[in-house]
């Protein structure tokens, strides 16, 4: 089997709720994505989701490194892509391109065996522990409470993650709303908070300590900058809850300081880190340290496939129980608070051609990227509360 060519389609979609974190309290109501299709001479097509900003780079890699190669040899092809970008580094935009192509290669490898990816990886079909993640700083208290309640009652989640960081009083109030929502399904809900690198280490220690007077938190995520392993370690030693970090790292090498200095208690992994190939390496390295790993939010919750083979897997983030993109379906379904991988070949992703054509765009519309406003002023220094204008914008909900 040989790779022949790549197609990619950029698309945009409407979110079902306004999403934002400490860096963007007014949030966004549009999302974007990219469907990458790797064609083979045997008619099988591998699907990768991602690489929104790197379509030319992906095209170049396919032409120079993948065309004519057998996709079942994905580890070797992954190495080829990584080694090719030795000098400039395989992080950043190059990482996005490698990760997306690697995903498509794994999809093909599993499809070539006519089996779901979890089986190709060697996993067993099993329910995957997961939690509901709000991305809900722009939501009002009522909207937030309603969303968590729905996640508990309709989807069965027993824990959730709250975006925090700007307004300590509001964060404490909203933590209580989240806890109350999940009391429906769990006696001791899993409570997670995420500051998205908005704090300095000492801010984090003060704020988490105050929260811990009232709540038993399972983890605090990205309480300091991604590369500040000493700061993360400092927080880890000062609070009771676990420090969870790694989401914005790209390569296995990026994790070395975390491991060497035992900077985090829970390691975040995603296929966005050098693809499925590298995500598996990171999980194994963390396993050597007996560190639990958590898989981040993924389109159609496809991370459930990976969870089946990671011996130190803890829990997986679910931002939307059903992908809001509208251009694909996934056969990973959320049932009673667990993710159940399906039996369709490969990743189990099917493209809705009609919808894809309808939603295709030439370029990402303004405000539809994952972090459209960049880092918020005051980050690592002092908290800048949402402005009147930001509050007004957030209050619009998803109305256009």
């Amino acid at each position: 089997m040989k790779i022949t060519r790549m197609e990619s389609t950029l698309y945009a979609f409407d979110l079902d709720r306004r999403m934002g974190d400490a860096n963007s309290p007014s949030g966004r109501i549009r999302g974007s994505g990219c469907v990458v299709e790797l064609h083979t001479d045997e008619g099988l097509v591998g699907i990768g989701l991602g690489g929104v900003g790197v379509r030319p780079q992906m095209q170049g890699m396919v032409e120079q490194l993948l065309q004519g190669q057998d996709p079942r040899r994905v580890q070797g092809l992954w190495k080829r892509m990584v080694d090719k970008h030795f000098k400039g580094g395989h992080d950043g935009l190059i990482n996005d391109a490698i990760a997306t192509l690697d995903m498509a290669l794994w999809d093909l490898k599993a499809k070539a065996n006519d089996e779901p990816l979890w089986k190709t990886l060697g996993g067993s079909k099993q329910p995957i522990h997961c939690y509901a993640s709000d991305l809900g700083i722009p939501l009002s208290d009522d909207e937030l409470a309603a969303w968590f309640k729905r996640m508990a009652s309709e989807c069965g989640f027993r824990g959730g993650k709250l975006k925090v960081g700007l307004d300590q009083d509001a964060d404490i109030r909203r933590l209580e709303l989240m806890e109350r929502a999940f009391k429906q399904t769990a006696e001791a809900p899993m409570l997670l908070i995420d500051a998205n690198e908005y704090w300095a280490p000492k801010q984090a220690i003060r704020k988490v300590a105050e929260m811990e007077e009232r709540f038993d938190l399972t983890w605090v995520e990205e309480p300091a900058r991604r590369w500040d392993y000493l700061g993360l370690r400092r927080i880890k030693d000062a609070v009771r809850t676990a420090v969870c970090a790694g989401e914005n790292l790209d390569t296995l090498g990026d994790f070395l300081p975390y491991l060497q200095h035992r900077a985090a208690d829970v390691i975040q992994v995603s296929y966005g880190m050098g693809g499925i190939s590298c995500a598996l390496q990171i999980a194994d390295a963390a396993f050597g340290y007996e560190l639990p790993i958590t898989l981040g939010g993924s389109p159609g919750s496809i991370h459930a496939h990976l969870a089946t083979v990671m011996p130190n897997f803890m829990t997986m983030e679910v931002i939307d129980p059903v992908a809001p993109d509208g251009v694909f379906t996934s056969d990973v379904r959320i049932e009673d608070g667990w993710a159940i991988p399906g039996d369709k070949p490969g990743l189990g992703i099917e493209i809705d051609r009609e919808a894809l054509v309808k939603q295709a765009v030439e370029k990402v519309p303004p405000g539809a990227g994952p972090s459209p406003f960049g880092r918020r002023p005051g980050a690592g220094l002092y908290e800048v509360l949402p402005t009147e204008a930001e509050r007004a914008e957030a209050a619009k909900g998803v109305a256009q």
Partner: protein
Amino acid sequence: MKITGYRVENYTMQMDRPIADSNYPSGDDLMPSSLLWIETDEGVSGIAPGGGDVERFFHLLEGQDPREVVGLWRRMVDYVHKGGLVAVGGPISSIDIALWDLKAKLAEEPLWQTFGALEGRTKAYASGIGYCLSDEDLFVFYRRMAERGVDGGKLKIGLDMTADLRRIGIMRDALSVASPRPQLMIDVNEYWSPKQAVRFMHEIEKHYDITWIEEPARRWDYEGLSQVSRQIKAAVATAENLKSIGEVYPLIHNQAVDIINVSTATSGFTGCRQVAHLAYAYELPVSMMNCQANYMAHLAAALPNHLSMEVVDPGREHCLDFDNHIEEGFIVLGDKPGLGIEVNEQKLRALQENPPVRKSNFPFARREGAGAYVKGVEDGEVPWK
């Protein structure tokens, strides 16, 4: 696709030549051996060299799909949680290998492709395990390997500095047809203490550029190994005797060694790959330990940080047909499905029916003086003295 049964056959392996290290320099050519088959309802069987108490784990496997090998590995490892892997690693390792063989056979591809390797090849180095070989036989062995392009060799040393230095030179000369500067490795199999290792290496490094020294101190002594590494120029390689990623952890976290020896000892292909990935996070190379029919080369070919694999070739595959060979210094794997190993049942039966009269001395006991003082070879122990 379901696992329905298994079969273990035991036999005594008679090698074409004896092998020996510093712990038992006179060596032996007999080794107790086993083969494992895992059978399925579709007639395909997975094969692995090895066996042991498979019965203890079979209830975890029966009725399961062998393609779910990583999940089954987890089941087995969790099952022995309390006692730990040290005592029971053997059968888990063999089962894991047989399951991967099955997984690749069911996908009708060689196992290296199942692991995702780009090519079925990995760099080889020659390892005589030949403390018992005469100087002449030693030369013949390394020259034979060099003629197949192998440009690195490893020598067992540790008991006699004069002879060890002479024999490193013999290995280098034999390999020099493959490279003007062959990779020279030496292995003391934990016979020295750290400070002995530092002193002896100081002497050896006056004469030779050594690529690595293997097991210059005890397997768990990360402080001692690290001390050796800091005081010598050569890399320190170790870990072949460890049984799980958890045992390898202190070596890596403390940056005690420079090369991690990986093998089936850490619970089969699945556990071996975990160790390699952990090493990769530290940019540490891994080197695959030798095995019958070189089957571990399938995984080595797919590892991003694999250095070179040990090839001993003592002639121990008398009842096995296998699908790989050494060419231009690489182990080149074929395209037969799975491990590419077939058992010749007739020859196996013959080995079982006519066992050697003598008992094997494997595994070698630790030699007197280890870690304390060097007990030199005695008259008649080896042909080179």
